[in-house]
């Protein structure tokens, strides 16, 4: 590697930085004013590329390309305004978690919509008219379009900077970012302000996506990748700071460019390919910044986290009725293998449901009583699954040993990640847990020699007698029952009470001698450990494990399961996981557009049943009892 090639990569990095900046600055502006993390921002960016592609190919020429890019920004801006008016206005007062989920539902819906309109093929747009050539630089050829992009970022940054500084609209945005109640009290029409900020942020994302049309193909995977990148940039730069967003975009893009520039290096006899570590490097930067400056490089601490969720009922020991119900359900499940003789699929379905129950119950443990909304629970599932599968692959250990090791691997990961995570709260905790999960995913995906890369690990089959469906089902049932009972027991023990005390009021908990961070850290570790059991079982149940099954989608599935059942009840996650897994295995597999369907389910859940299935039932029950 020479200095020239490094410099060349650095300039290349600047053009990537512009793309990152366009999407991140919109996300940041929207969060600053509305306090909502728009998870659908990556989708707006993706749609920008697709729409610009249509303009550039259907109309063509200079007008189709350059005019199309402008038109795209306006169209995506309008989509943003519609999202704000139709959805977000209803949930500004809802708990943070619901806002995150509602916007994630949009991700699913938009992805399927794009799929439906443009199909699943990658679409590469035409070269940019007027900038199709390249410039000679340091003996290499740099596309002039890349140079144009590298300049576009700073230009938009300057325009935004002066807009915010000099115009009335800009002053309102800055004022609302600092104190939106006050802006409302001063008689500013908040509805109009919020809608226009959302439209502006969306238009920027659309512009960023549209500008990529001549550089990279439009693909359906862009939404989550762009979102992940934007998260990192916003968190590193500091929420609500546009200069911070550009600074962070440059840092991230340069770190990635550096990794690619360094390439393969010999380190003490082992050749390490740095270009494979771009994803890990990106998230490492974020983790380091969050630890050193929890609010980002140029960010300011946010006000106290609002907790407007209805306070929950004190927990009560299971009533005889509930115990009876649990015994009946357990009895029926034990009887299930007999029924399954006629339909073997029943066993597969049963195992899926039980694994989901372990996954959701362990997530609920930290989300509900711990108050930590983890958006990266898939990490511990993945560590458990890969831990077990790799032990089988490399050391050929027996199944029992691998299953016992799975929770320990997950525990180690949870202890490490949890230590950082409990230092943050609210959306920052959500983003950090997501980032850690992405690190696990990226490590697994990029470390091909050890983990099998995108192919995963195959041939992880259970040994007799567990190679038969009924036997593995009973094993899963036994482990799921133990996991659920252990977590429940801990919640009723002093440790569980201390967890809830720390969630209800950290200040008061500290004032009676409770080390809240330590308690929450251990809770995080316990949840990760139990989740590892689910991962280990999953690997053996499917006979394989691949990066796809530990992707961010699984973390979100977990959140939906917990909310579906109701976060404020202890039985909620069990019901939620069962219903979700059954829906997924039956209805959703029937349609090509299961994502949109899942998105619709989430939206209904968030808007109509904020307390979940079990929550809604117990509310009804209470009302009915109150009436009679």
């Amino acid at each position, binding site marked *: 590697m020479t200095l020239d090639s490094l410099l060349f990569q650095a300039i290349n990095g600047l053009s990537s930085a512009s793309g990152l900046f366009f999407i991140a600055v919109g996300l940041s502006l929207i969060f600053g004013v509305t306090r909502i993390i728009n998870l659908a921002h990556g989708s707006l960016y993706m749609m920008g590329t697709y729409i610009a592609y249509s303009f550039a190919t259907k109309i063509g020429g200079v007008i189709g390309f350059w005019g199309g890019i402008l038109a795209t920004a306006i169209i995506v801006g309008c989509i943003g305004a519609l999202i704000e008016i139709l959805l977000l206005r209803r949930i500004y007062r809802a708990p943070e978690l619901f806002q995150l989920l509602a916007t994630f539902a949009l991700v699913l819906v938009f992805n399927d919509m794009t799929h439906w309109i443009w199909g699943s093929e990658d679409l590469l747009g035409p070269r940019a008219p007027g900038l199709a050539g390249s410039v000679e630089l340091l003996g290499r050829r740099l596309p002039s379009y890349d140079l144009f992009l590298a300049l576009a970022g700073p230009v938009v940054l300057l325009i935004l900077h002066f807009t915010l500084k000099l115009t009335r609209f800009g002053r309102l945005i800055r004022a609302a970012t600092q104190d939106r109640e006050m802006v409302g009290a001063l008689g500013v029409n908040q509805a109009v302000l919020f809608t226009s900020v959302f439209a502006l942020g969306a238009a920027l994302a659309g512009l960023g996506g549209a500008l990529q049309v001549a550089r990279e193909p439009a693909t359906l995977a862009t939404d989550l990748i762009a979102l992940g990148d934007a998260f990192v940039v916003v968190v590193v730069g500091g929420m609500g700071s546009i200069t911070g967003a550009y600074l962070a975009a440059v840092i991230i893009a340069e770190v990635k460019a550096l990794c690619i520039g360094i390439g393969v290096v010999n380190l003490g006899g082992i050749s390490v390919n740095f270009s494979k570590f771009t994803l890990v490097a990106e998230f490492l930067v974020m983790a380091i910044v969050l630890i050193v400056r929890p609010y980002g490089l140029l960010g300011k601490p946010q006000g106290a986290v609002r907790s407007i969720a209805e*306070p929950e009922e*004190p927990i009560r020991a299971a009533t005889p009725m509930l115990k009876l119900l649990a015994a009946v359900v357990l009895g029926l499940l034990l009887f299930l293998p007999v029924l399954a003789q006629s339909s073997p699929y029943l066993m597969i379905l049963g195992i899926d449901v039980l694994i989901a129950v372990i996954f959701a119950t362990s997530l609920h443990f930290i989300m509900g009583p711990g108050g930590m909304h983890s958006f990266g629970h898939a990490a511990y599932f993945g560590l458990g699954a890969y831990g077990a599968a790799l032990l089988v692959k490399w050391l050929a250990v027996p199944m029992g040993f691998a299953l016992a090791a799975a929770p320990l691997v997950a525990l180690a990961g949870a202890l490490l990640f949890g230590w950082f995570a409990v230092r943050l709260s609210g959306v920052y905790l959500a983003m950090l847990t997501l980032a850690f999960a992405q690190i696990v995913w990226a490590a697994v995906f990029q470390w091909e020699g050890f983990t099998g890369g995108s192919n995963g690990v195959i041939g992880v089959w259970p040994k007799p007698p567990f190679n038969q469906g009924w036997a593995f089902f009973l094993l899963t049932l036994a482990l799921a029952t133990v996991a659920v009972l252990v977590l429940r027991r801990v919640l009723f023990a002093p440790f569980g009470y201390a967890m809830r005390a720390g969630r209800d009021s950290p200040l008061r908990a500290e004032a009676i001698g409770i080390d809240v961070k330590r308690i929450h850290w251990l809770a995080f570790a316990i949840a990760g450990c139990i989740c590892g059991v689910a991962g280990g079982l999953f690997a053996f149940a499917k006979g394989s494990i691949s990066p796809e099954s530990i992707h961010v989608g699984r973390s979100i599935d977990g959140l939906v399961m917990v909310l579906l059942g109701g976060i404020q009840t202890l039985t909620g996650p069990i019901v939620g996981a069962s219903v979700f897994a059954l829906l997924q295995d039956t209805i959703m597999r029937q349609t090509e557009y299961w994502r949109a369907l899942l998105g619709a389910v989430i939206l209904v859940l968030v808007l109509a049943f904020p307390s979940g299935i079990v929550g809604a039932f117990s509310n009804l029950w209470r009302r009915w009892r109150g009436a009679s």
Partner: protein
Amino acid sequence: MSVLAVRQLSKAFGGVRAVNDVSFAIGAGEFLAMIGPNGAGKSTCFNMINGQLAPDSGAILLGDRNIAGMAPRAIWRLGVGRTFQVAATFASMTVVENVQMALLSYAGDLYRLWRPAAALHRARALELLAQVGMQDAADRPSRELAYGDVKRVELAIALANEPRLLLMDEPTAGMAPRERNDLIKLVKQLVLERGISVLFTEHSMDVVFSFADRIIVLARGRLIADGNAAAIRENTQVREVYFGTGKTFADGTSQGAAP
């Protein structure tokens, strides 16, 4: 010997010296009121003693141990109880569970993972609730309580670690006058029985002058008076601070550019 001795305590926020070279002590079983107008530095002083803020300089001696800069939970473990200006409970727990929580912490049971907490220390928690007159509400969800009752529960929680010293930040804020006197009487009776020293801030002068053994007065970050009710009432500096003589303004202008 004094239970708590504060020596030359100072804390600045930016350029503002919120607490400036403050020294005082609390004797065993003493009921000491800290008063002063808004912005005098009472809360800052208080938060340094309970560990929420670290002082810039000075010492806070609990017995012969300097607790300046220690974490709130460590100070609590050394036998300092506290109540908050805005009372609240652990909202997802019953009244008795709130008190049990403090007892569990005191007994070092927090990391127990197996035995149900509901039965642990329940008898002692009920006893404490009885002493503040809240035993009948023991099994109600604590979030349903009226504000005055929350204050009583908070008092029971504060007594759970058998403190030597009780810090009460505006114990009667937000209460009606009758409730106020009842609560302070209750506090006074409970601490007398146990020989606990109390440091409290208070805005109600009725409460201060009728219940405090001794009063210290802060103004603009400095301690300007220290004495019993009668002495404080007669103190001219205190009168100035509270009622104004016009002199403070005269001082201000004479230092300024105005002729």
